[in-house]
C-alpha cells in the first residue's frame, strides 16, 4: 500500500477537477469490485456485492475524498503575475515558500508585495503567484485555471511526508480494504468523492443517490502530539482513530461501538477521536434523506492543509485491518 499512497499523492486533483485522480483510482479497482460508475457530480462509485447471505447484511457506504485543496487563478497582470483565490481551507501562512503545480505542468511560486525582509503577515490580497512568465501573453495559465500544492513525497522510517495525504491516504486505505475484504455479509458501496474540501458536496449527492444504511468516512484527522499543540488525544503511530465527534457530526454510538469492539476483538490498536474543528463526508451523508447512522475511521495526520503533511504508515495499515474485520462480520443487532 505504501507505493499506492505515493502514487495517489502524485496525481493532480483539486476540488472540482478530479478527473485525473478518478482515472488512476479506477485503474486500481480492476478486479476488486462488481461494478464501477461515475455519478453526475463526478463521484467514483464502486460496488462490491455481499458474498455471504445474511439477514443482517447492510448497505454500507464507505467514503474517501479524491479532491485536494489548491488555488485558482483570478487575474493575470500585465507582467504575467497571477492573483489567486483559494480552493478549500488553505492556510495563508503556509503559502510563502510553497510550490504549486498546474494541470498543464506549469509551476507556481508564491511571492508577496513589498520587501522580502518585512516581517508582515501574509494576506491573500498581498500574495501573488509567479508562473515563470514575463507578460500576460507569455503566461501559460489563465483565469479559472487551478493548481495544487506539491512537495516531494518523502519517508523517514514509517513516517510519510506529502502535500496531500489528506485524503489520498484515505483513498489508498479504501482501495486496500476492497482488496483484502474477501467475504462480507454487506453490500459495500465504496465512494471516492469529489469536492469534500469545499463543503462535502460530492458526499451530499452520493449519499442521496445510494441510500446507504450505514456511512463510514475514511479521512485524515488532526493530532495533539506536537509541541504546544491544542490538547487532543490523537497521535501518530498509535493506531487508526475512531471518531466520536467533530464540528458537524456526532458518530452514531452503535457504529462507534461496532468499530471499537472489532478493534478489541482483533487486537487492533485504536484511539478515540474528538476533533474540535473540521468534519468529513460522513457528516453530509448522516443527514441525507431520512438519516444514516454514521462513523469515521481516521488516519492521524500532522499539519493537515499545509504543503507538508505527516502521517504514520502503520496507522493506515491499522485502518485497513479495522475496516476489513468490521466489514467482514455482521453489524451488531
Amino acid at each position: 500500500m505504501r507505493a499506492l499512497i505515493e502514487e495517489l499523492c502524485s496525481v493532480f486533483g483539486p476540488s472540482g477537477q478530479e478527473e485525473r485522480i478518478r482515472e488512476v483510482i479506477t485503474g486500481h479497482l480492476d478486479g476488486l469490485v462488481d461494478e464501477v460508475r461515475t455519478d453526475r457530480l463526478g463521484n467514483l462509485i464502486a460496488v462490491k456485492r455481499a458474498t455471504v447471505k445474511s439477514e443482517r447484511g447492510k448497505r454500507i457506504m464507505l467514503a474517501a475524498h479524491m479532491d485536494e485543496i489548491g488555488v485558482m487563478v483570478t487575474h493575470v497582470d500585465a507582467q504575467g503575475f497571477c492573483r489567486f483565490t483559494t480552493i478549500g481551507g488553505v492556510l495563508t501562512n503556509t503559502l510563502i515558500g510553497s510550490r504549486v503545480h498546474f494541470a498543464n505542468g506549469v509551476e507556481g511560486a508564491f511571492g508577496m508585495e513589498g520587501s522580502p525582509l518585512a516581517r508582515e503577515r501574509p494576506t491573500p490580497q498581498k500574495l501573488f503567484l509567479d508562473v515563470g512568465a514575463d507578460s500576460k501573453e507569455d503566461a501559460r495559465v489563465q483565469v479559472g485555471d487551478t493548481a495544487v500544492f506539491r512537495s516531494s513525497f518523502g519517508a523517514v522510517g514509517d513516517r510519510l511526508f506529502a502535500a496531500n495525504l489528506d485524503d489520498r491516504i484515505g483513498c489508498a486505505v479504501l482501495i486496500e480494504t476492497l482488496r483484502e475484504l474477501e467475504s462480507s455479509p454487506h453490500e459495500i458501496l465504496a465512494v471516492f468523492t469529489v469536492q469534500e474540501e469545499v463543503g462535502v458536496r460530492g458526499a451530499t449527492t452520493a449519499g442521496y443517490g445510494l441510500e446507504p444504511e450505514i456511512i463510514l468516512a475514511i479521512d485524515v484527522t488532526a493530532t495533539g502530539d506536537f509541541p504546544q499543540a491544542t490538547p487532543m488525544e490523537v497521535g501518530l503511530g498509535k493506531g487508526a482513530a475512531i471518531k466520536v465527534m467533530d464540528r458537524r457530526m456526532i458518530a452514531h454510538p452503535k457504529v462507534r461501538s461496532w468499530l471499537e469492539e472489532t478493534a478489541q476483538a482483533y487486537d487492533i490498536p485504536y484511539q478515540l477521536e474528538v476533533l474540535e474543528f473540521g468534519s468529513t463526508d460522513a457528516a453530509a451523508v448522516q443527514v441525507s434523506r431520512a438519516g444514516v447512522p454514521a462513523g469515521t475511521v481516521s488516519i492521524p495526520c500532522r499539519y493537515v492543509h499545509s504543503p507538508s503533511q505527516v502521517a504514520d504508515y502503520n496507522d493506515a495499515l491499522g485502518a485497513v485491518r479495522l475496516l476489513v474485520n468490521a466489514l467482514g462480520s455482521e453489524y451488531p443487532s
Partner: protein
Amino acid sequence: MNELLEKLSRARGVAGHEGEVRAILREELAPHVEDLTVDSIGNLIVRKGGSDSSVRHRVMLAAHMDEVGGMVIRVNGDGTVKFSSVGGLDPRILPGKRVTIGAQAVPGVIMRAPHAARTGKRVTPISDLMIDTGGAGGFEPGDMVTFESDYEEYGRLLKGKAFDDRVGCYVLAELMKGSYPCELVGAFTVQEEIGLRGAGVAAYAVEPDVAVALEGTVADDLPKEHDVSPTTELGRGPSISVMDRSAHADRRLVRILTETASAHDIPWQFKQPGVGGTDVGTIHLAREGVPAVAVAVPCRYIHTPAALMDPTDVGHTLELMSKALSGPLGRPLGGRVE
C-alpha cells in the same frame, strides 16, 4: 429601454415577499408556456416541451425574484421604524436613502438614531439606523422595506434597483418565449439573498438534467490602484462563473457557453473566481446532483438603490443563452464529468 425590465425593476419584493414580481412574470408568461405553477415555498415554475421529441433532456434555468432590502421589526411611539436587513446590505450606503415600507409602499428615509449620531462613528451599524416616515402608519412588524429608486437611462447605461436579479428574471422570461429542442423549465426562485433557499426546493422538484442560474452580478470595473482583477466589467458581455463560494461550475457547461459565444461572436468574460454565490449553490446539490453553471449580467453598485448596467450586456446574455439552448446546451450532456 424595455417595458418588462422596467416593470420588474420597479416591482418591490425582498425575500419572502416576492408576490408582486411573481404576478408580473405570471401575466407575462402565461401565453407562452404550457404549464405554470407556484410551489409551496413560492417559486414560480414554468415549463415548455421541446421542439424535438427525440431529445430527452430537461434544462432548468433559474433566476431569483427577491431583492435585498429590510424588514420592519418595531414601530416606535414617535413614528420612527426600526428595521433589520434581509440579505446583504452595506450599512455605509444606507443613511439618507429613501425607502418604501409594506404593501402600501409608505415612503420613508433612513436616518441614524440620535444616540448613534453622537458616537462619532464613521459607519453606523444597521442596528442603530431607523426609518423616519413622518409619523405615517399603514405598516407593521414583518413588513418589507425596499429601496425607492426610478428606472431610468444614465447615458448609455440603465439605472435602477434590484437588477440583482430582476435582469436575470427578464432574460429568463424572454428565453421562455423561444423554442428549443430540449424541455425547458424556468424557475423564478424565492429567498436567494438569504441563503439560496427557493432554488434547492425547485431543483429537487424539477429534477433537471442540467441547470443554469441567470444572475445580475458585481461589476467593479472602475480604475484601481493596482493591476488586480475586476470581478466583472460592464460592456464586455455575459459573465460566466467557474467557481464561487457556493459552487464549482460543471466544466462541460462552461465550455459549451464559451464555445457558443466564440462561434457567434458574442463577447463574454469569466467572473473573478472565488467571489459571491448564486442559486447554483443549492441547485447542484439537489438529489443526486445537477451539473450547473451561472451566467450573469454585470451590474455596478449592486445591492444599492442605483445599480448600473449596460443594455448591450443584457442583449448579449440573452443571445448567448438562446444560441446555447438551440445548440449544445439543448442536447444531452456528453462526455465524462471533469
